[in-house]
């Protein structure tokens, strides 16, 4: 008729935001112990996965965001590269997607290194998950606003680095905004330990959290679980973690507690009464001593 509609999206058309953990400390050094999958192998799995997503539907869209230690950036966007097929693959050994992604990744790593401040970091080096989550959500918002016909977005975090506690608030905010805009966050943890953040992220947003037992079979995990479009998820049973522990732990002894004291200002949790909040420094009013409080409580039933 008048024109071929500019967008023909249907329910199973997906927009996959893939957050790639590019923490160099994760992939290098004594990496053989952290992940049994070396980076090239890992990337092979991921790239094949991306290709398979694009294969499933001509309208599927894939965006890759690199999560570095100091920065994060978009390194591949299948929608923007559609027009430029002319600069054909460099040596025919790999698809265009792959070569383009790799060159962008290289640039990104150089930039990320330039931004790093100290020479040899001590302790845990975590990647900037909050930043890449925000980038992904921004992109999704743009897609949402582009019109009534848009692909169904979802986020997939391929995370290996440990959680960065200082990002807690930012990540939680990202999670809640994802929840609000009904974007599921899938997480595939490739590192040595589970990620509490991603567990919560997937739980809250209704995504899938999975930590592959066999790193060699990463592609199989990706294609079996994470390639499932949102429409099909209504009909399928996907692996769910056995449980997410939402119990809080006290800040003073890091014990998991069922009942405790909460700072009314910063919501820090303590297992026993303190005079002052050790986190924000708020001075607590003199709590009613044990005797007085129980007395007060008890009076009522007696009357």
């Amino acid at each position, binding site marked *: 008729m008048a024109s071929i509609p500019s967008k023909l999206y249907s329910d199973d058309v997906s927009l996959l935001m893939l957050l790639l953990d590019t923490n160099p400390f994760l992939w290098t050094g004594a990496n053989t112990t952290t992940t049994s999958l070396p*980076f090239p192998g890992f990337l092979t799995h991921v790239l*094949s996965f991306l290709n398979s997503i694009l294969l499933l539907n001509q309208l599927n869209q894939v965006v890759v965001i690199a999560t570095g230690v100091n920065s994060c950036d978009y390194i591949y966007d299948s929608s923007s590269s559609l027009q430029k097929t002319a600069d054909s693959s460099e040596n025919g050994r790999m698809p265009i997607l792959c070569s383009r992604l790799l060159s962008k990744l290289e640039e990104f790593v150089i930039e990320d290194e330039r931004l790093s401040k100290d020479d040899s970091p001590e302790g845990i080096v975590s990647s900037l998950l909050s930043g890449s989550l925000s980038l992904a959500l921004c992109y999704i918002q743009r897609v949402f606003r582009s019109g009534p016909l848009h692909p169904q977005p979802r986020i997939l975090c391929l995370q290996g680095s440990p959680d960065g*506690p200082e990002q807690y608030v930012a990540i939680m905010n990202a999670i809640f905004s994802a929840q609000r805009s009904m974007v599921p966050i899938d997480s595939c943890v490739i590192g*040595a330990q*589970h990620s509490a953040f991603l567990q919560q992220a997937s739980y809250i947003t209704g995504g899938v959290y999975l930590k592959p037992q066999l790193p060699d079979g990463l592609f199989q995990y990706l294609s079996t679980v994470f390639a499932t479009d949102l429409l099909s998820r209504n009909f399928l049973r996907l692996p769910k973690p056995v449980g997410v522990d939402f119990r809080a732990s006290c800040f003073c002894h*890091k014990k998991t507690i069922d009942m405790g004291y909460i700072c009314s200002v910063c919501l820090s949790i303590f297992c026993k009464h303190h005079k002052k909040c050790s986190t924000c420094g708020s001075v607590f009013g003199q709590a009613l001593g044990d005797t007085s409080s129980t007395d007060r409580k008890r009076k009522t039933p007696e009357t």
Partner: protein
Amino acid sequence: MAAGQVVMRAKYKTSVKDPGIPGVLKMTWDKFIFTPNDPRSSGKLDVGFKSIKGHMFSKEGSKKALLNLTQYQGGGYIFEFDKFPDRDVCRDFVGKVLGKLQSVVPSGQDAKVVSERSPATVQDEQLSPEEMERRIKLLRDASELQKLHKEFVITGILTEAEFWATRKKLLDVDGSKTSKQRVGFKSAMLADVRPLTDGRTNKVTFSLTPEIIHQIFAEKPAVHQAYLNFVPSKMSEKDFWTKYCRAEYLHRTKNAVAAAAEAAEDEELAVFLKDDDILAQEARQKIRRVDPTLDMEADEGDDYMHLLDHGILRDGIKETTDLQYELYKRTLSQDLNRHAAVVLEGRALEMELGDTRTVAEALARSKQAELATKISDENAYQERLERASRMTEIEDLQAPRTLPFAPLCIKDPREYFDSQQANALKALGDAVAGTRPMNCTLSTEEAYGSFRELISEMRAAGLSDPVVKPEVSLKVLNGLTQHLSSTKYNLGKSAQESVLDTLPKSTKEELLHHWTSIQELLKHFWSSYPITTSYLYDKVSRIKDAMSHIYPKLQEIKESVQSDFRHQVSLLVQPMLQALDAAFAHYDADLQKRSTRSGDRPNGFV
């Protein structure tokens, strides 16, 4: 009580006034029988409790110890007892019986949960009818609450008072809602005391009632002031009102000239005739309180006074103004406005209307309170100024108004969040216990360098083919499938779905009910510690007994469900059992401590 029947000497009366037939009242679980002492008497009764709707009783300390059992059909049986304790025994029994009956009858039917006011109601609690009403209403509205009430109060585990003590808030909230309406002034203009002329003589009669006086005081502060000043030091009350009426009369007859003349003679009278200074001041205050942003000009065109025949008629005569004596004239509109203001203020006639003096003083007190608010008016004035400036300002030119706030300062975020993570790791670090989290012996440069190498290596080598070995693939797929089928029954199909929903409805409800009742019991249990009185000691042991009855019930539920759900149910029951166990452990420990510390006081007194 426990015997299931009560026998008491009482008098049966058909009405309160009736002298009554002496006899013996015998109550059992299903009926009560009254046998008159005189076998020939006709007052023999044999009535089933089923026909009894509720019971009423006279307050302790009133003249007679009465118990009235009302019937559904209306009417009732009144018994008079010799002593209050006798009556109380019967009353408590009746309460119990009715409570039991009502719990059999579906609660929605009549919604009269009324007489669950039960035995425990109470040794020391005399409730006002409103209070009772409120509780009954609450119970009726919340079936959950009603269930709990039935379970614990009716069976005597908790007393009525104990039950409600933890729910004070419910009662309060409810109470504030039902505050009674306060009666204000009538909107009719009573303040104009009409003179009554008998037509034959020249005598003019004014009739003043306390209510009218009160209203006069309210509407005419000057009169009120004068009354406080003059009566009774300067003149008697009668003289005062005579003078007032005289002034009123002069107003009424529009005799401005005469009014002026008389005012010159009598300064007290002048007080009534002149414009009310206090009123004027109040008016000024009100004008100041007018919203400065109000556009008065917009109403200017609505001035009907300038149009012909639009003046206000008072008693059928058009008011005309005579400038000269204006001081002594009051216009109808002034009166109207004043009256309206008073009505709107809604000063209630709370005090007993009787003594004029007390009325005047009470009014003065309330005025005083108003004065206090006038001081706050000064602040309000400031606020008005601000508001005016805000309304007239040009928004672009103003600095942004930011609310003062104290920024949240978190000294070390690591401390804040590490704990969470440590916890999560502890819980989840299942298979990977042995692996080190991450090796950070590398410097940044080294790490980035080798990472870049990896990338370029990959660019050169391309993708490895095949991506996955078929064996590995198969293993993964089988592993996932197995994982799925193993978790299929343990968890809901989605994370959000509660396990409870998969259970049969009856089981679910039963579990929830047990959960609430356990919570209720535990609340009372823990609030009784430390035990300081024998009362508490009793209460704790009562609750403990009740709690011990829950164990077998839970076990029963567990066994009654189908084997598919048994695992889930036991998971759900687990926390309940834990909570109960904790309570029992505490009870035992406390008992032990008590016995070692004070072996000579076995009763629990501290």
